[in-house]
């Protein structure tokens, strides 16, 4: 089946809840109403004509301009060798999407990852913990507005940039060569500027 046929079959079953198949150049996708995604997925897996037995990928895309987080489902059928891309939009402020863990077990880890990196809550998920980042990490790094704290538990992750520092040294040397310029006396070089532990958020 082509994507169009797969989409037709889904629309025939779910009507308006499955949006139209987009026409982007490379891979078309269709938008599904968030509340019905688990049902749509279950149908896609269990309907013998579709038989989407593989959840190939489950991920998310942050779209701050539209104030949504899109959760993307790539489904594939080993039996029929066809695929479809489903998308669900969730509110950025409190993203919440039903889990598809009950449909494919592979979703357990995929959803944990999306929860970890985007902060999307999958309601009904049995084990929604952070997977890649430490449990006490603050923020969800793959969101576009994520600001890095600059370290973790007092472990600094910033290295002095010799390219910038050397340029500063050059500029200073040049200033020293020009007699009219006044140069502030150099303080002895202090220890590398690492903030004290605990100051990091």
């Amino acid at each position, binding site marked *: 089946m082509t994507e169009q046929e797969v989409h037709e079959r889904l629309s025939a079953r779910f009507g308006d809840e499955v949006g139209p198949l987009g026409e982007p150049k*490379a*891979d078309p996708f269709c938008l599904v109403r968030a509340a019905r995604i688990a049902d749509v997925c279950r149908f896609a897996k269990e309907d013998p004509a579709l038989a989407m037995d593989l*959840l190939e990928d489950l991920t998310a895309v942050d779209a701050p301009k539209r104030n949504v987080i899109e959760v993307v489902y*790539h489904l594939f059928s080993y039996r029929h060798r066809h695929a479809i891309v489903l998308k669900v939009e969730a509110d950025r402020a409190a993203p919440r999407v039903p889990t598809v863990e009950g449909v*494919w*077990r*592979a979703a357990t880890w995929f959803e944990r990852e999306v929860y970890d990196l985007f902060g999307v809550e999958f309601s009904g998920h049995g084990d929604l913990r952070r997977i890649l980042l430490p449990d006490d990490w603050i923020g969800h790094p*793959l969101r576009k507005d994520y600001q890095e704290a600059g370290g973790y538990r007092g472990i600094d992750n910033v290295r002095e940039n010799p390219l910038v520092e050397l340029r500063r040294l050059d500029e200073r040397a040049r200033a020293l060569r020009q007699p009219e310029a006044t140069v502030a006396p150099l303080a002895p070089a202090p220890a590398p500027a690492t903030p004290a532990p605990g100051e990091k958020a």
Partner: protein
Amino acid sequence: MERLILRRLQADGEEMILNFGPQHPSTHGVINFMVETDGEVIRKAIPDVGYLHRSIEKIGEQVGYPGFMPFTDRIDYVAAMFPNEGYAIAVERLLQVEVPPRAQWLRAISCELCRIASHLISVGTMAMDIGAFTPMLHGVRERETVNDLMEALCGSRLTYNYHRIGGVAFDLPEGWRDRTLRFLDHFDRFLVEFDRLISFNEVFVKRLAGVAIIPAPLAVDYGLSGPNLRGSGVDFDLRRDMPYAAYPHFRFQIPVGKGFVGTVGDAFDRFYVRCLEMAESSKIVRQALESLPDGEYMAKVPRRIKPEPGEAMSRVESARGEMAYYVVSDGTEKAARVRVRTGSFTAMGIVDAISPGLMVADLVALIASLDVVAPEIDR
């Protein structure tokens, strides 16, 4: 979770929590397993990943399209050609660039050599985890030759950065073809010797046959792919079934687990499918070198890569299963989202389900047979 397990532990007092990793000789990188054991028998092994998370997907949003290529090397540094290829194909689909045939062939050659190199590590470390050291070093010895070939081809032994959006970075160097054919001649003999050294060694077979069986439906449900999936008896290979690059032009078999010495889907099947795949890769490289078309090895690609808004997915049969890149473009020079779906990630998810009832030594066999590589899980 820890507290949960501890509470259960206090309840009956018979079980022990073993922190298997993050620094453990057989976790193949930095992975932790919280193993609940009753003596030698595992009640549950809960994988804890993320120790090697380097936010490569975030980096993909911050460097331009061509600049991300070297980072893909670091996704799976045991087989860095596949991430290269997957990313290149995804962006090419976004750009709608046609890759010249010679580049397609070069991609297939480099990837299949890389598959050999990666599987050598996999089967070698598997033998090592089972306790035989020599096969591992034999594997590494052969891999060194592949590394030398790669070094001559693209200048690096590990992080190749060979593929480019629209083709490959270099043509074959002089004499490379003959060197490769010589290696393949030697390698086919090596595979026979390797089988006699370890594959069918009775001690080895007894350690793996019927151990950690993953039935086909479970493997599909958990999204296993690549040799792990084929080890469970599912006859599916992206190179044959969803052809990309030059693969439709080659003839090769897809080895599938048949329960060679035990049950379909056991650790030995996953191991031996890799051994057989190496022989197939060797065949593919030979065919590709023989039928290598002339012409450009790089398509005409604009200097500033700026795909129109849209999204594309590329699926590549990597050494560790399906590697898929999902690239979303917003029309700028930087991707809006680069998502990497890796075989190791899904393979790791199944440990939870397979581990109960195994012995501690079998857990080692299970991890080795899944051939997970920590950076590929964590990215």
